[in-house]
């Protein structure tokens, strides 16, 4: 991995390699020939923490709208629906995660990738733009989480 940028989530140092692009829903995307490989960013993984359940609601080969719901993830502390980062067609899901989703925690930028999909990635952000995006959402993210915890 070449260069990386960091963003402080409180005491936690989230690291973002600059060799790839980022979607605003906290997935990284890396171009591989005619398609993109997506995975969770350090920011997403930090919010989720220990992932133990991952489920895809769509099959490989399906065309998805940008932001279409495609699955769900659950960790010890949190859960979330998952949404497509692009308009495009899913080619393949990472089979390794089906057996053991905790790879998301361990190897988020490598073996813990989520899926491959085709589509126009020109809207994805460079790492420094993603950091700017994180600066704008971090405050609200914290408040939202606290708000839910105090419910």
């Amino acid at each position, binding site marked *: 991995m070449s260069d990386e940028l960091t963003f402080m989530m409180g005491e936690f140092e989230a690291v973002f390699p600059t060799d790839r692009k980022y979607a605003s829903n*906290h997935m990284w995307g890396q171009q591989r020939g005619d398609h993109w490989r997506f995975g969770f960013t350090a920011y997403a993984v930090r919010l989720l923490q220990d992932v133990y359940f991952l489920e895809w609601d769509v099959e490989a080969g399906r065309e998805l709208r940008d932001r279409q719901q495609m699955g769900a993830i659950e960790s010890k502390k949190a859960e*979330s629906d998952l*949404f497509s980062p692009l308009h495009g067609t899913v080619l393949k899901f990472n089979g390794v995660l089906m057996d053991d989703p905790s790879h998301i925690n361990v190897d988020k930028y490598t073996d813990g990738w989520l899926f491959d999909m085709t589509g126009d990635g020109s809207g994805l952000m460079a790492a420094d733009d993603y950091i700017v995006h994180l600066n704008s*959402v971090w405050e609200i993210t914290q408040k939202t989480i606290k708000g839910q915890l105090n*419910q």
Partner: protein
Amino acid sequence: MTIHAHVVISYGQSNNPTKRQLESVLAERLAKLDGVTTLVVPNLYDLAPTSSTIQRLKTLPGDLIVLGWLYDRATHWILDRNGVLGKFGITELPIDEDDEEELDSSLDGDNEASADDMARVIDERPALDRTIYSLDLRKTPDVEVFVDEVERIVSIAAQSRPQPLLDWLQGEGTAEQMSRYLGEPETTDDATGRRWYPVIDFSRCTNCMECIDFCLFGVYGVNGADTILVEQADNCRKGCPACSRVCPENAIIFPQHKTPAIAGSPANAGGLKIDLSQLFGGSNAVTEAANERDEQLIMAGRDAVGMAVGIPKRQSGGRATDRDELDNLVDELDSLDL
């Protein structure tokens, strides 16, 4: 010989052999317990109010212990809508080790939504002197866990009100007839097809009427006392959970929906776990509800209405009491285009 409680086992919606197995083993085991009768019935959610099973359940006096493949809240309020009423019994099935930490933040039973001073529909009702305990069969495949819990409940029921079986048989019971009902599970039979409709949790519902305004399929109505009710259950569109997202109290349950919070999981939506969906690119609940409703309108050959009809007033800031800090944050989130 006394009966302290009636056990009811409700079949799952599917014919899953593992489920069938647990149901029948449990029926045999529970029927042998002292102080209970055991009745095996079709899936409670699928039964019509006029079915012989529901009629039969209505005649059972005293405490009920109902085992089914649904969240406790779902089972309780399905019975309620069918006129089988009782207090919400607190059960003590062991919790998965994984969930133990969450225990503190989740509250048992029907009182989690009543912490504030909002008037709930249930507060208007006369007090009930019987308790209905619902047990979720999905919690564990271990028969003994359920047997233990039923025994625990029966002993509580026995202390509070020993109830003679003869009363239950309404005077027609002879010793031989009695023994017929003891030791063996009894089965009721009603033809059922899979149904799909909302079930209201009246310990949460404030009768705000958001749901009746939102649903364009004529599912909701009001009774003589102007209390909300699910009037035309079968008008509901299969798979549509839209109104549950609109209800400000999370009072609307779709027992078969895959999302636990909609299917009647015990905690408030997001109460057990932090829901990050909106941070990860989801839209807010009301927008989602309007989309789902449009989908159903189009499938029914009608025109989509988007956000133009029956959208909760709180979205435009109308209900000041509902707007708390979190609502404001969620609005901020919306405007951020995450």
